């Protein structure tokens, strides 16, 4: 009765967070965003329409037609 399934998650300590700051650049952000880049890429590759848009956006950025930093 006491052997309940317990979900264990990793909890970052302050030390872990400081290490992340050091590894990925300064401690001037108020938060850290963790992005699964490979997962996002596989999502784009999986769906032809998303891939088409991604390729067009990449081409447009290369041609300097839109500046993403202006958002």
């Amino acid at each position, binding site marked *: 009765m006491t052997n309940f399934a317990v979900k264990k998650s990793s909890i970052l300590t302050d030390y872990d967070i400081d290490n992340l700051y050091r590894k990925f650049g300064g401690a001037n952000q108020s938060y850290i*965003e963790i*992005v*699964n*880049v490979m*997962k*996002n890429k596989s*999502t*784009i590759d*999986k*769906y032809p*329409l*998303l891939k088409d*848009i991604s390729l067009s*956006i990449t081409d*447009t950025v290369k041609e300097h037609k*839109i*500046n*993403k930093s*202006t*958002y």
Partner: protein
Amino acid sequence: MKRVFVKGIKGGTGTTSVVANLACVLKKSKEQVYVIDLDPKSDVGLHLGLAWAHEYGWSNYPTFNEASCQFHQDSDGVIFLPFGSNSQAQFSSSRIIEGCKQIDNSDNAWLLFDCPAHIDVTQYSLNEDDIFLEVVNCDAICHSLIYKRLQTLSQAAGQWQHYFLANRYNSASELEFDLLQLWQSEIPLLASLYINKDEVIKEATAFRNVAINCAPYSVANDDFETLAGWLVSRVNQDES
């Protein structure tokens, strides 16, 4: 007065439900709330208890002052102005937006505009204090439209707070889950919250009501309360 314009990136994204539910949640938080229906479908009133047979709204009058007689108040105290039945409105949306400035100048007043999906945001004279919520669903067409919108926004002359708000999010859908994850890291201007798909919203509408009244402990109501709080933070950030 705080102005929030809500528009779907395409038709059918659930914009009117968002406006009606958001209005009632804000009203429950002791804010003064006005809802203006700029959509010729004129269906905001259906969420706020207006009789289906009621045809008149601001579009049936030649001036804002005359149209003011069509302001209604729902049981929660939300004051709303239906579009009406004249799809060829006698005066333009821009004039009704301008006219609404004289409604209430108090700091805790919210003016929510339910905008039609076909409208171009640049047709409204927005200023830097205005918030423009563009409602999207997690699907491939909205993904395409978001990127097209980002291109037009990068060339827009005006300044306002523009956000994409994901509505009807179904976390059980692999596509929607993946798309939202992708958007959260790739799409600038994505609101840091989303509205979950919840049958309560449709059911509440069928009862000519909103989620907070029909199912106050629902996920939908939680989401709209989060949206209201987030909007308050956007306004306060703007004021600070």
